[in-house]
């Protein structure tokens, strides 16, 4: 089941450059929330603060509070513990090139010490089913390398890999920006099903996509949240002039 995410006074820096200013947001469980805004507005930085990927960059810093359910992300929780509960799908599909499809999906469990073959088999099948890839790859699980799939399949493989460790939250950083419309459609359908079980936060440049998949939308500009509301409200009747300008294509 998904959990609520509370973000309080979140600030983030790259060296001396401040990328996020006092972000306060709340993400509802079992809903999808879209983050939109022009390039460089901080939405990717923000999403990477939710699973503490931001701090893997040299000289990057974070201040503020993030709560994932009952877990305090920056206080008393290790980054690895947190990341097992907060899965992430990246902009460019990044399957492990040296591993088969099966090993890619099982990697999260295997590298964290699970050896039980039967359990792994079950998880792999369930995760590939959940990411709507099972039927396409079930006959070549062990023969085919993860890197040998098409771009859209690779991204669904990465989603399966993230789901296999049974997270409560799924972060998606522009998951469709490298995909064609058909693959994009499949992933959007998938997001609809995944919502039933996870809290989903998705960064996107595609406003139609935000409107299609997300119940809530946040608009970022220059490292600040300008407006956060129900998707419908944001796209039909935004209360901030700058949101309206961005959505109607007057800038950005």
């Amino acid at each position, binding site marked *: 089941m998904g959990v609520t995410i509370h973000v309080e006074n979140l600030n983030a820096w790259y060296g001396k450059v401040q990328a996020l200013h006092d972000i306060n947001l709340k993400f509802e469980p079992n809903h999808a929330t879209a983050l939109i805004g022009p390039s460089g507005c901080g939405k990717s930085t923000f999403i990477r603060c939710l699973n503490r990927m931001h701090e893997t960059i040299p000289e990057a810093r974070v201040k503020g509070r993030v709560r994932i359910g009952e877990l305090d992300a920056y206080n008393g929780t290790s980054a690895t513990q947190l990341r097992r509960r907060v*899965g*992430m799908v990246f902009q460019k599909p*990044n399957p*492990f090139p*040296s591993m088969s499809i099966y090993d890619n999906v099982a*990697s999260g469990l295997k590298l964290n010490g699970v050896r039980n073959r039967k359990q792994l088999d079950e998880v792999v099948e369930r995760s590939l089913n959940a990411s709507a890839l099972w039927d396409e790859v079930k006959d070549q699980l062990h023969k085919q390398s993860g890197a040998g799939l098409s771009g859209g399949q690779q991204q669904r493989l990465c989603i399966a*890999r*993230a789901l296999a460790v049974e997270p409560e939250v799924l972060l998606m950083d522009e998951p469709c920006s490298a995909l064609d419309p058909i693959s994009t459609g499949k992933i959007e359908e998938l997001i609809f099903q995944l919502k039933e079980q996870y809290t989903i936060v998705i960064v996107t440049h595609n406003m139609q996509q935000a409107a299609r998949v997300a119940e809530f939308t946040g608009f970022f500009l220059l490292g600040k949240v300008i407006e956060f509301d129900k998707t419908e409200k944001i796209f039909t009747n935004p209360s901030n002039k700058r949101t309206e300008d961005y959505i109607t294509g007057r800038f950005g």
Partner: protein
Amino acid sequence: MSERSSNSVAQSSLLRISLWRRFTDCFATSVAALTVVLVLLPLGAIFAYLVYRGIGSINWAFLTQTPKPVGEAGGGMANAIGGSVLILGIASLLGVPFGIGAGIYLAEYGRNRFGDIIRFTSDVLNGVPSIVIGIVAYSVVVLRQKHFSAVAGGFALAIMMVPTITRTTEEMLLLVPQSIREAAYGLGVPRWRTTLSITLRTATSGVITGVMLAFARVAGETAPLLFTAFGNQYWNLNVNQSTAALPLQIFTYAISPFDEWHRQAWAGALVLIVLIVGAVAAVRIAVRRGALAGANN
């Protein structure tokens, strides 16, 4: 009318461009092919000449017997073949883990001043003449133990292997895209585990290439063995005794005044090259099999 004529002018100039391009393409490809031939020619010539001079003296006795006293015909280099295998084994055992370990440090943690110093020293070490490395091993191992040994020889060769392995391992790990590491971090895999199971595994074939380059380079070294392994006319596999090695034996035989020894030196050189090529090929095949097996389970 005017449109049509300008069109045909455009076409003919396009044709000229395409002819010119086809010519330059052909020319560049031939030059590239020629350089390949020029590079491979000396290699082929050396190998062919070695076979021509050496093959006649290679027989069962040469591979299984130790040298006969001067003046007696026959005998072989079994002691040197065994000694080389022993010394190279010790060198690899010492040099490969240190080299790969240092390479991992430089690639994953060494983006700082200390890392720069190690990179620089490693490159300098790579350029140190092999005879100097031999003297270092002599003073560090031989003087302390008070006798020549296979261990001392292996130690000298290991020092020579380390910088090559370190730098190639670093380069190969840096070629692994950051997005692959992030994928592992995102699954909650700790950093050390990511380095060993994801990054190093992705770069395996490149790292192995570096190891084999270092191995092939030191396998033919004579100078560092002169006063470490020293050489031995008898069969010996005791790591604490002076030990024969193919390059040493070839050197001794080649500068001797005896025709029989000259013939054996050629044969020894041929055996050495076959051993190196064989070892490199065997490792490559094993790695490929291993990678396939890894993907299958």
